[in-house]
């Protein structure tokens, strides 16, 4: 890239906010699993919306592609540039809170703020921000919005899309569009904000957002249910929702294998049951703390045992125990990484097909790789299953991964035959482009039209979602 361009950009952000040495870019160009590893002309770290706008103006003038990055936790390669002539725009320094608004119950923050920090600031102000994912210590609210992240609170609070009230974005030519008002109702034409939610950096840069906050729950009731089949867990879910008015804020299914891996690799974890096939982590969040409520929950869960839907159950009696329960759920990805190669599928199907999906996908895995180990977990109340296949214990990782394309293809075929989605939470990025082309042709054409009208020069994250 021409020195002159980089100099101009350096003038905008300052010398200490631009990385030109390849060695120093490593943390931005690879992601935690080491699946993708990229190239870039520079990493640029603007500190304000104005700086983002000025950088984009320069890039627009010289036709230079911009790859926006938040916390670099994306799982489909969307945040990584792959070209020596592209610029990586890291928003890690665009991270201030602009307003905590207790009256509208909203918070306005810049895109690069870490999700966990946003949660903490809400807590300090007696508010609650319900978006919660295992990557919350690193991912950013901008990245969450750009990927419409899901996570464990979706069952009750919805996806990121449901939590965003307004956005500030910078368009490819540097123009700033400010739409940050905390309005619940705003029917003034197309919803531009919704276009940017889930856009994965292909339309512009999200620089700030106003998001919804909620009253802080006072009491949480956390439990593990031991269950024989996914089908029974769905029946249990419906009974719980029909009989308890306390918000059910988590219902996370896990198979035995996922918990086995956690206990093997993560210190200070232990299984709540000596033998089990499936387990569900259940959590209720309440604004009050009453014996009556507790008793109702205990009674209902116990009723599930009497009905034969649940084999056994344990209830936490302190915050520490709740934390330990969550630790089991949240350590699954990390533990699975230590078991060698894995083939990941983040799919969703209508809830009525979950049992069939799990059954058939397990058969597909066993048929193709007899000793493969299925790690199955997810937000079952949303119909969202992470169906991850770990390599056989003694297999060669590379040899195993050779089967990835074939196996993924089969599992996506199964998903689509059940009216499902081949990417429930993690987006398209690079990894799911092929599936999008294959299964969503008409939608892709419509999306392409929108992309071309906003990003005429195709410089916002080119090659992601769409072919270059």
């Amino acid at each position, binding site marked *: 890239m021409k020195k002159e361009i980089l100099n101009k950009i350096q003038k905008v952000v300052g010398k*200490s906010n631009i990385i030109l040495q390849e060695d120093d870019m490593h943390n931005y160009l690879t992601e935690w699993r080491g699946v993708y590893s990229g190239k870039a002309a520079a990493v640029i770290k603007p500190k304000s919306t104005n700086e983002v706008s000025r950088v984009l103006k320069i890039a627009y003038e010289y036709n230079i592609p911009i790859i926006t990055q938040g916390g670099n936790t994306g799982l489909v390669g969307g945040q990584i540039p792959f070209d020596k002539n592209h610029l990586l725009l890291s928003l890690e320094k665009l991270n201030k809170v602009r307003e905590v608004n207790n009256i509208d119950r909203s918070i306005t923050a810049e895109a690069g703020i870490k999700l966990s920090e946003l949660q903490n600031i809400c807590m300090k102000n007696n508010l609650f921000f319900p978006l919660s994912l295992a990557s919350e210590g690193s991912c950013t609210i901008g990245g969450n919005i750009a990927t419409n992240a899901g996570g464990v609170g979706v069952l009750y609070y919805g996806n990121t899309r449901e939590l965003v009230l307004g956005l500030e974005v910078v368009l490819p030519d540097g123009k700033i569009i400010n739409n940050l008002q905390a309005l619940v109702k705003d029917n003034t034409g197309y919803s531009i904000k919704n276009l940017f939610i889930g856009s994965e950096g292909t339309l512009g840069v999200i620089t700030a957002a106003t998001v919804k906050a909620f009253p802080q729950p006072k009491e949480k009731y956390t439990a593990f249910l031991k269950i024989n089949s996914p089908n029974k867990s769905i029946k249990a879910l419906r009974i719980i929702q029909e009989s308890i008015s306390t918000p059910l804020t988590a219902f996370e299914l896990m198979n035995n294998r996922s918990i086995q891996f956690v206990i093997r690799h993560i210190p200070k974890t232990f299984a709540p049951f000596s033998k089990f096939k499936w387990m569900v982590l259940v959590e209720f969040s309440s604004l009050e703390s009453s014996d009556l409520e507790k008793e109702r929950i205990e009674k209902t869960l116990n009723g599930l045992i009497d009905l034969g839907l649940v084999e056994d*159950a344990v*209830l936490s009696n302190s915050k520490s125990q709740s934390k330990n329960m969550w630790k089991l759920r949240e350590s699954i990805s990390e533990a699975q990484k230590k078991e060698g190669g894995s083939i990941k599928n983040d799919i969703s199907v209508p809830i009525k097909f979950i049992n069939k999906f799990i059954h058939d996908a397990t058969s597909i895995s066993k048929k193709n790789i007899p000793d493969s180990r299925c790690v199955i977990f997810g937000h079952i109340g949303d119909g969202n299953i992470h169906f991850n296949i770990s390599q056989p214990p003694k297999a060669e990782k590379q040899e195993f991964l050779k089967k990835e394309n074939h196996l993924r293809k089969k599992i996506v075929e199964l998903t689509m035959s059940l009216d499902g989605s081949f990417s429930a939470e993690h987006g398209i990025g690079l990894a799911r482009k092929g599936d999008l082309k294959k299964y969503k042709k008409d939608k892709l054409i419509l999306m392409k039209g929108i992309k071309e009208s906003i990003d005429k020069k195709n410089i916002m994250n080119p090659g992601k979602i769409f072919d270059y």
Partner: protein
Amino acid sequence: MKVLVPIKRVVDYNVKIRVKSDNSGVELSNIKMSMNPFDEIAVEEAIRLKEAGTVSEIIVISIGPQQAQETIRTALAMGADRGILIKTDELVEPLNVAKLIKGVSEEENPEIIILGKQAIDDDSNQTGQMLAALLGWSQGTFASELKFSDGKINVIREIDGGLQTIDIKLPSIITTDLRLNEPRYASLPNIMKAKKKPIDEKSPEDYNIQISPMLEILKVSEPAQREAGIKVETVEELVDKLKNEAGVI
């Protein structure tokens, strides 16, 4: 052999506590309360002893307000057999607690009393030791492992910078340290059963004890706030700040 396990209802370990604005104590209204974590370990150890056949009955005692009954129910749900609530709304101090436990002990005749090494609300770390003195029993404090052999307990103790192994003769006082065990979750069927287990309600007067505090709390204050760190961009800046702002070089 009977075992007695005193348990205390305290502010949950994971709650960020706030000091009252008049510095008279910590804010307790609308705050999550749980069993003192060290007591939870004591209950777990008693249950393991029962499962191993060493112990025949587990009696938990709590001294505190009516709500301490919830804490007793939790212990019963984990596997204790019955409970005794000695009701008082006064602030309880180690010596009074030790005297009351002694009172219960004289009625129940246990051979071991397992306590937490301290309660996380006042961190006194005195009750077990005082009780051993009042009863004239042997004591194994800060236990991280217990082995029973006829009439004796082999106790591994956590001491500063290492471990100490001692043999003590029954009857004994044990106080628990963190590494002794990992307390179990209460299972739902056991929670339901625990609702039917008996809890006796008593008052300090039943044991001829007056709960009058001997300590007067003058002031409770938050620890000094640590100032947030800063990031410097260059070595020169670091040296400059150390010299001119921190004044350390």
